[in-house]
């Protein structure tokens, strides 16, 4: 049994952030019915040249585990059909530009008038309100608007664009807020509207820097440095492009590290006697550390440092992650079969419950794959009526 079993979602989301929200909720047990149409299929069904992907994704981590129906939202009868779907759902999720759902007659006010208990989650780049609410945006723009992009980067370099992790952070936050609203519904009967702003999610990830700036501080790009810890960074190892991260938190850990390095001279070096002095001379200190790590195998060094209680980890590429024993043991990385029958690594929703199950039970649905169940069983539409709606390109 999954924790959100029994919760049904009418899913109108597109692109990455919104679909990731409903994908995670579906892995937690919600039944997610994805609404698309042949005239407007999900972007993951299409090639994506700017990303350099010339073909569609064969298995994707935002559409999998969902049911698929076709509804043409450009047709009035399609809107009526969408409302029927909302009527049998607990949660409506959408990620159109603000105003589009209202224009379609599917805005929160219209749906709440029909079904007061409806919970709606809207995901957009800047939120449903405010002077910039009409702005178009993607992950790197959310990061740019929200100061996260400005603050990320080498000290002497430009800002850095946030990629898919930004979209998916928005989706994860939306999933969390959605469950909070549904939990209120279950306890009080109150529906509601959750309006998630992607640029505000970027802001929330640098909340402490914004507060520091509000008090007159000037937060800036600091690369891999930490404001207090040194050594702290990403270090070269013996092998090309195998990097080791190390963070030393205390004097005790510094002593242990110097012993591991077999470098007693560092312990008497006046530059490295106190935490603040080490921080002040971190460039020289990091040079010393790297001379040592350059002689080591990254994984062996990671193990030796962890055995001594020092925070260290390999800088993992996705191959490392796909075969990581810890992640496999936890069930975080699992093997799934894609639509071609090939096995590949995928991610289970990142929560382990003591009793409840979590995870994917099916891959990406074909467009309209679940219409017998959704239109037939759930909405009780006869085969003749469905055929007629298909002929009229309402189910299309």
């Amino acid at each position, binding site marked *: 049994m999954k*924790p959100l079993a029994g919760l049904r979602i009418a899913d109108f989301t597109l692109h990455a952030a919104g679909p990731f929200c409903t994908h995670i909720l579906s892995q937690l047990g919600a039944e997610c019915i994805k609404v698309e149409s042949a005239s407007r299929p999900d972007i993951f069904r299409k090639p994506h040249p700017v990303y350099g992907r010339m073909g569609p994704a064969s298995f994707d981590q935002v559409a999998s585990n969902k049911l698929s129906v076709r509804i043409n939202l450009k047709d009035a009868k399609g809107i009526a059909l969408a409302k029927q779907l909302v009527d049998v759902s607990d949660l409506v999720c959408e990620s159109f530009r603000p105003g589009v759902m209202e224009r379609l007659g599917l805005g929160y006010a219209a749906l709440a008038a029909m079904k007061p208990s409806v919970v709606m989650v809207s995901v957009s780049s800047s939120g449903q309100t405010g002077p910039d609410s009409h702005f178009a945006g993607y992950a790197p723009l959310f990061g740019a608007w929200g100061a996260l992009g400005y603050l990320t980067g080498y000290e002497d370099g430009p800002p850095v664009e946030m990629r898919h992790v930004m979209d998916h952070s928005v989706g994860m936050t939306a999933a969390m807020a959605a469950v909070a609203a549904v939990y209120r519904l279950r306890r009080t009967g109150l529906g509601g509207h959750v309006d998630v702003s992607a640029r505000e999610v970027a802001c929330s*990830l640098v909340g402490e*820097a914004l507060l520091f700036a509000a*008090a007159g501080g000037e937060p800036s790009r600091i690369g891999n440095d930490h404001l207090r810890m040194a050594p702290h960074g990403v270090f070269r190892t013996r092998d090309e492009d195998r990097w080791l991260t190390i963070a030393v938190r205390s004097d005790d850990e510094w002593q242990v590290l110097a012993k591991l390095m077999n470098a007693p001279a560092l312990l008497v070096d006046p530059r490295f006697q106190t935490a603040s002095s080490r921080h002040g001379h971190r460039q020289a200190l990091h040079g010393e550390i790297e001379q040592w790590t350059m002689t080591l195998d990254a994984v062996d060094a990671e193990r030796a440092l962890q055995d001594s209680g020092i925070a260290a980890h390999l800088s993992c590429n996705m191959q490392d*992650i796909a075969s990581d024993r810890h992640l496999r043991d936890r069930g975080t990385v699992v093997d799934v079969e894609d639509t071609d029958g090939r096995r590949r690594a995928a991610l289970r929703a990142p929560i382990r419950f003591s009793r409840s199950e979590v995870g994917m039970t099916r891959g990406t649905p074909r467009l309209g794959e679940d219409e017998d169940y959704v239109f037939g069983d759930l909405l009780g539409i006869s085969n003749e009526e469905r055929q007629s709606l298909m002929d009229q390109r309402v189910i299309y």
Partner: protein
Amino acid sequence: MAEGAFVPPLAGVTVVELSHGVAAAYAGRLFATLGAETVLVEPPGGNPLRREPPFLPPADEASALFAFLASGKKSVTCDPKTTAGRAGLNALLANADVFVHDLRAAERAAFELDEQSLKARYPNLIDVSVLPFGAHGPKADWQAEEINLIHASGEGFLLPNGLAAELFPDRPPLKVFGHFAEYQGGVVAALGALSALMNRERTEAESVDVSVQDAALAVGAFALQRLGDGSLEHRQTRSFKYGGVLECADGYVELLTLEDRQWRGLVELMGRPGWALDPALSDSLERSRRGAEINRAIRAWAREQRTADVVARAQALGVPMAKYASPAEVLAGEHERARRLFQPLDVPGTGRLPVLVAPFHVDGAAPSLKAGPPRLGEHQHLLAAERRRQQPVLATEAS
């Protein structure tokens, strides 16, 4: 729901937080933001995040990190190493719905807060563990800070990309600013706790095990999907084929045109330069192939532009473009003000400051925090009140 009748989603929910790090603290902060009564249990010396930089000027005493993460919470001091401290904590837990913490297995056993003891004493309590690598698995006892976790989850290896990667191809990979991975751990812990609360309504309470590494990896799902497609992503090769970070005369902007109509808008924005009118470039695959050439031209054009002007014209033409806003610019932003992203709150040791409330609205309005960050032990009376309330029960148990 009618406007003005706002009931915070978690009104009536009680959360006890015992945290050392950012992830568990952010989970508690999300509960407080959503309206739960969130009690931060601090050791007599205070939560360690009170001592983490940056410190708020001009006094440089109060931690900005702690102030942000603890806003809306209540504070009691209570030392679970002592019998009295454990009794106090137990009094709080007896009335709580959720216990969120980042205690290691050995500490849990020493404090009698292990999963089995909690379940036996508080059958309705949702026990949420948030650790760097989770409570189970071969790395459960491993140490990690943010820089280790952002790299353990794969995103660190993939940064920077775009302009910074081009400028500094030989530098080590770069972490995201601040506590990105740990914040993901906080969001996921809150999601796990809420899912368990939902489930408690029909079955019984269960415990939740969240790993910051898992959470940060989850939001990096796309790179693992690409691996399955046969492509091992690398920071030097995953840049956008054109666009991205552009240096203007007075700062940086981000430009990303994924759709043909956005590309056409960009051509307009640049004043229809000759090179961009090449008919071959109307094909998106051709643009992808000629990305480097396009980038040279776009970058030269961008250097002549002023950010405010070019972003306004871009958005009017439907071209996705944004300024890389500094924290000060975000704080002064009209849009942020209109959405009440920041709430003025008293920060002990500093004064009244705008604190980011939440990246979402509920029922048409920004949530509202009950207060700024608490002083150490500011709500100590809660402990006494709980113990008084529970005295008859405890007496019965003792007999």
